[in-house]
C-alpha cells in the first residue's frame, strides 16, 4: 500500500484536461444548410485515375453578405450542370437556400467550381463573391445590396481561365483596396503532341494526357499564381510578375498574414508534389511592394523540411506570443510508412532567416502531427479557454476498404522524374481506397505544464470522437464561425462528394459559459495616413488588421483574414475565448492604415461577452441583436 501510495505521489502529474470538454452536434439537415457535394468529372481519357482527379472541389465560404449580423454560407458543387448554393442564416438556428434569388449559382457549364471567397472589392460595405474554377473563367459577383449579385468578372478583368484551387483576398500594397491572389493547380497550357505548340490545357477536351506532376517531390510543371491588384476604380491589373510571384508549383492552398510583424501581409503557399513556399512582403522597405521568396538553410524554398505535400495552411498565434504561427496539413498514413504528417510551425526569432523570423516544426511534440490524409484545417478556440485549438479534416478517396491504392502509389513515388506526367501511365484506381475512411481530428490545446510560466510550447489532445465529430467523409473545406452568436465557435464542413456537416458547438449548453469577445472590424479607406511618399489605408473588411487582448496573464492576438487555406473561408469577425474577464487590461486594434486604437480598463472589460463592431477611428460598439434574432434556447437534436 505504501509502495502504491509512494508511486502515486511520485508519478508525474497528468496533463491537465482544461479545455478538453467540448461538444458539437451535427445539424445540417434540420437547419436547412445541407449540401451533398457533386464531384467534377473530366474526360474519359482520365478514367483510370478519375477518383484521384475528381477528389477536390468541396469548398465553403462563410460571411455575413447581407449585414444582418449572422454569418451566411456559400458552398461549392463541382459537377457539370450543378450549381453552388448560398444559405442565408435566419439567426434562429435555420438557413434558407437563396441561391436562385441571389443569382450566384454559377452553374458549371464548361468546367467545375472549386472554391469561393467573400470580400468587399469596391469598399461599399457589401461583401462581394469571387468564385474560382477549373477549366472555366472565374466569376466575380458584385453585391447589389438587395440580396442579388451581378457578374462583373470581365469588366473587372478578373475572369481568369485556369485551374485554381487556392484564392485569397488581401491588400498586399495597403492602399485600402482588396487585391486577389489566385493559385492554379494544373498548368494552364499543355504541349499539343501533334503540333508541338502550347495550347490550352482543357481537361474536358484534352489534346494530351501528359498533364500530371513531373515528380512527387519537386514538381514545377503546375499552374501559376495570379496576383490581381485592385486599382480602386472597379478594375484590376495583373501584377504577378512585378510582385515576384512567378513560380509554377501545384498549389492547393494559400494564406496571407503578417508573419514578421512588419505590418505587411506575407504569403505561405502550400504546394502538392513539392516544397511549400514562404514569401515575405517587402512593403516596409520597397514601394511598390514585392514578395521575396524565403530560401531555407538547405537551399529549398520554404521554411524547413515540409514533406512536399502541402494541402492546407492556416495562420494564427497559437502560443500567444504576438506572432502568427502556421499549421500545414500533409499526408500521414502510418500503416504504409507515410509518416510525414501535419506541421505546426512555431514562429520564433532567428537572425539567420530573412525577416528575422524562423519556424520550428513542433507538430510531433505537440501532438498535432497525425492528421491522416490531411485537407482543410483551422485554428479556433472552441472552448473559450484562451488557447487556440485545431480542427483538421482528412480522407482522400473512399473505395473498397479491402482493396487500396497505396501499393500502386508508393511504387510510383519511387519512380524517377517524368514517369508520372502521363495520366495514361498511372495504374487503374477503379474502386480502390486511398485513405478514405479517416476520422477527423480535433486537437484541443491543453496547458502542457501547469504552473510553469516558462513553458510556451503548446500541447494538444485529440478529442474529435468524444466531441461528437464522428463522420468519416472525405473532408475538404472547413469554415469556422459563430453562426448562432452564442459566443461559441461552430463549424461548417464541406465533404467531397458527400453531405456537408454543420457542427453546432453545444459545449456550454446548460452551463455558465466562459467569456468570449467577438469583434468585427470595419476599416475606413478614406482615413488613409500619409507615410513618406505613399498613403496607407485599410479596406472596409479590414483584412490584415489585428485585434490584441492584453490581460494580466498575457496576450491574445487575431488577424483578420480574407480567406485562408484549402477550400474554405471563415467569417471575417475575430473571436477570443476570455476565461477570466477581470484579467483584461486593454484591447487594441492595429489597422493596415498604420492607425492604432486602444480601449483600456473598465471600458475594455465591458466589451467581454459581447459581439462588437469596431469602426476605424471610432470607439468599439456593442452590437444589439434584434429580439427576433436571438439564438434559440433549445435546438432540434439530430444525429450525424
Amino acid at each position: 500500500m505504501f509502495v502504491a501510495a509512494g508511486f502515486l505521489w511520485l508519478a508525474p502529474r497528468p496533463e491537465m484536461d482544461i479545455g478538453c470538454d467540448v461538444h458539437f452536434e451535427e445539424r445540417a439537415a434540420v437547419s436547412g444548410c445541407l449540401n451533398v457535394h457533386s464531384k467534377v468529372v473530366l474526360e474519359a481519357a482520365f478514367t483510370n485515375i478519375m477518383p484521384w482527379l475528381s477528389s477536390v472541389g468541396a469548398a465553403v465560404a462563410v460571411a455575413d453578405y447581407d449585414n444582418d449580423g449572422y454569418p451566411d454560407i456559400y458552398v461549392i458543387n463541382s459537377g457539370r450542370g450543378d450549381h453552388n448554393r448560398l444559405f442565408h442564416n435566419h439567426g434562429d438556428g435555420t438557413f434558407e437556400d437563396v441561391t436562385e434569388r441571389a443569382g450566384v449559382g454559377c452553374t458549371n457549364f464548361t468546367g467545375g467550381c472549386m472554391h469561393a471567397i467573400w470580400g468587399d472589392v469596391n469598399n461599399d460595405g457589401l461583401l462581394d463573391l469571387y468564385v474560382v474554377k477549373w477549366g472555366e473563367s472565374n466569376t466575380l459577383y458584385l453585391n447589389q445590396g438587395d440580396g442579388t449579385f451581378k457578374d462583373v468578372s470581365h469588366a473587372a478583368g478578373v475572369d481568369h481561365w485556369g485551374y485554381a484551387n487556392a484564392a485569397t483576398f488581401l491588400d498586399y500594397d495597403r492602399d485600402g483596396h482588396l487585391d486577389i491572389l489566385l493559385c492554379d493547380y494544373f498548368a494552364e497550357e499543355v504541349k499539343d503532341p501533334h503540333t508541338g505548340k502550347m495550347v490550352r490545357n482543357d481537361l474536358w477536351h484534352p489534346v494530351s494526357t501528359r498533364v500530371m506532376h513531373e515528380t512527387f517531390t519537386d514538381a514545377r510543371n503546375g499552374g501559376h499564381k495570379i496576383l490581381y491588384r485592385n486599382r480602386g476604380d472597379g478594375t484590376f491589373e495583373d501584377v504577378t510578375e512585378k510582385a515576384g510571384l512567378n513560380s509554377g508549383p501545384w498549389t492547393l492552398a494559400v494564406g496571407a498574414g503578417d508573419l514578421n510583424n512588419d505590418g505587411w501581409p506575407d504569403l505561405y503557399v502550400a504546394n502538392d508534389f513539392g516544397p511549400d513556399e514562404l514569401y515575405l512582403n517587402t512593403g516596409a522597405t520597397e514601394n511598390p511592394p514585392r514578395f521575396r521568396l524565403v530560401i531555407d538553410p538547405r537551399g529549398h524554398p520554404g521554411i524547413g523540411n515540409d514533406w512536399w505535400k502541402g494541402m492546407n495552411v492556416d495562420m494564427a498565434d497559437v502560443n500567444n506570443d504576438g506572432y502568427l504561427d502556421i499549421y500545414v496539413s500533409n499526408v500521414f498514413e502510418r500503416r504504409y510508412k507515410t509518416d510525414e504528417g501535419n506541421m505546426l510551425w512555431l514562429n520564433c526569432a532567428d537572425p539567420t532567416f530573412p525577416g528575422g523570423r524562423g519556424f520550428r516544426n513542433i507538430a510531433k511534440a505537440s501532438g498535432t502531427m497525425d492528421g491522416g490524409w490531411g485537407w482543410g484545417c483551422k485554428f479556433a478556440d472552441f472552448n473559450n479557454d484562451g488557447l487556440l485549438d485545431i480542427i483538421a479534416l482528412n480522407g482522400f478517396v473512399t473505395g473498397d476498404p479491402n482493396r487500396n491504392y497505396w501499393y500502386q502509389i508508393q511504387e510510383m513515388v519511387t519512380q524517377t522524374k517524368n514517369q508520372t506526367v502521363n495520366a495514361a501511365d498511372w495504374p487503374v484506381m477503379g474502386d480502390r481506397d486511398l485513405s478514405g475512411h479517416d476520422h477527423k481530428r480535433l486537437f484541443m490545446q491543453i496547458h502542457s505544464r501547469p504552473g510553469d510560466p516558462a513553458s510556451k510550447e503548446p500541447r494538444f489532445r485529440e478529442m474529435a470522437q468524444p466531441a461528437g465529430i464522428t463522420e468519416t467523409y472525405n473532408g475538404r473545406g472547413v469554415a469556422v464561425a459563430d453562426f448562432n452568436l452564442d459566443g461559441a465557435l461552430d463549424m461548417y464542413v464541406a465533404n467531397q462528394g458527400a453531405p456537408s456537416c454543420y457542427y453546432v458547438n453545444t459545449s456550454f449548453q446548460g452551463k455558465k459559459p466562459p467569456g468570449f469577445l467577438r469583434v468585427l472590424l470595419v476599416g475606413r479607406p478614406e482615413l488613409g495616413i500619409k507615410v513618406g511618399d505613399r498613403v496607407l489605408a485599410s479596406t472596409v473588411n479590414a483584412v490584415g488588421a489585428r485585434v490584441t487582448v492584453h490581460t494580466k496573464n498575457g496576450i491574445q492576438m487575431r488577424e483578420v483574414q480574407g480567406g485562408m487555406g484549402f477550400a474554405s473561408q471563415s467569417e471575417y469577425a475575430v473571436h477570443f475565448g476570455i476565461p477570466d474577464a477581470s484579467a483584461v487590461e486593454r484591447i487594441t486594434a492595429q489597422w493596415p492604415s498604420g492607425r492604432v486604437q486602444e480601449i483600456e480598463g473598465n471600458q475594455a472589460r465591458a466589451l467581454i461577452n459581447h459581439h462588437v463592431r469596431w469602426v476605424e477611428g471610432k470607439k468599439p460598439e456593442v452590437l444589439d441583436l434584434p429580439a427576433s434574432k436571438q439564438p434559440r434556447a433549445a435546438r432540434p437534436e439530430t444525429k450525424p
Partner: protein
Amino acid sequence: MNATPVEPNESAWPAGRRKLYWCVALMLLAALAALAWIRTGMLDLPAVPANLTLATAGLADLNQMKKLNDQIWSTTPTGQQPALSPEALLVQRGIGAYRRGEAKAALEEMRQGIRLDPNNLVFANAYRMVVFAARRDFLAAARREMVATPKFPPELDRQPIAFFEELDRRHHTRETRLDLALAWVDEMLLFPALEVKAPSSVEAVDLLTQVIDHGDPGYVPALFARGLNHLHRPARLVWPESAKTPRDAAAQDLGKCVAIGRKLHTGSAHLHAVLAMNLGDAYVKAGRLSVAHSWWQIAQNLCHDDDVQAAIHRRYGWPDDEILDRLEAELDRSRGELDHPMTDLALMWN
C-alpha cells in the same frame, strides 16, 4: 682535506621529471593562451591602420568640443562668458531665441553660424537637436489634438535635412555628409512607421558609406553612426537586394570603433562602455551570442555608471531563445527616447 665545492647536480631533477615539468608548463601556457584567445581573440576586433591619428579618426579636440558645446548651450549671460567666435555667438543666440519660442528666427541664426564654420560638428549637432525638439513637440501637440495628418510649419518642414543637403552641396566634406546622414536618422526617430524608417535608414547608410569607403575608413563618428544604423534596423524588415547588408554589418562598424578607441586611448569610460554594449548587441543580431555576452561583460567592467550597469543587467536576463526579440524591444525603447535622442553627438565629447 680540501673539500671540493659541489657543483649543482643536474641530476637532482631527473631528466624524465624535467621533461614532465616542461610539458606541464607548456600545457599551462597553451591553456592560458587558449583562454586569452577565447576571451579576446574571439572578440574579433579588426586591425587598425598604424597611421591612424586622432584627427583622421575624428576624435581630436574632444575636450574643446565639450567646452564649446557647454558655452553655446549655456544660459549664463554672454557678458559673463569667455569671448566666443562670431559663428559660435550666432549659434548661441539661435539657441536662446528658440528657448524664447522664436523658432523661425532661431533656426535662421543658427544656420548663419553653421555656414561660417560648416565643419563644426558641435554647431551642426546643436542645430539638429533644436530642430528635433521643435518637430517632436509639434507632433506631440498634433497627437493631443487628434490631427490625422499633421503638417509642419514652413520653418520646420523638411528640416534639418533640407539645410544639410544645401550645406553639403556648397561645402562637401566628411563632416557635412555626417550631419546630413544624422538628419536622416533623426527622421527615423521621429516617425515610428517602418515605411519611413526604412528609406531614411537607406539614405543615411548610403551617405555614411560614401564617407567611410571614399577616403575616411577610420572616421569614428561615421562608423559609429553607420553601425548604430545597422544595429537598429529591425530584424523583421525584408530588404530589396540593392539595400541588403551583411548580417554582421553592425558588428563590423562598431568593432572598428572599439578597436580605434582602444588604440588611440581617447574617449570617456562611459563612451567605451556604450560602444562595447552596442557591439554586444550587434553580435546578437549576427547570431553570435557568446561573443555578445563577452562584450556586455566588458562593458560592465568598463564603467560603473548606473545607466550602463542597469542596461547590462537587463541584457543578462534575456533567455537565449528570446534574446533577439528582447533586444529588438530594447532598441525600440531606446529609439523612443525622444527627450534624449540617440543621434545627439554630445555623447562623443561628454
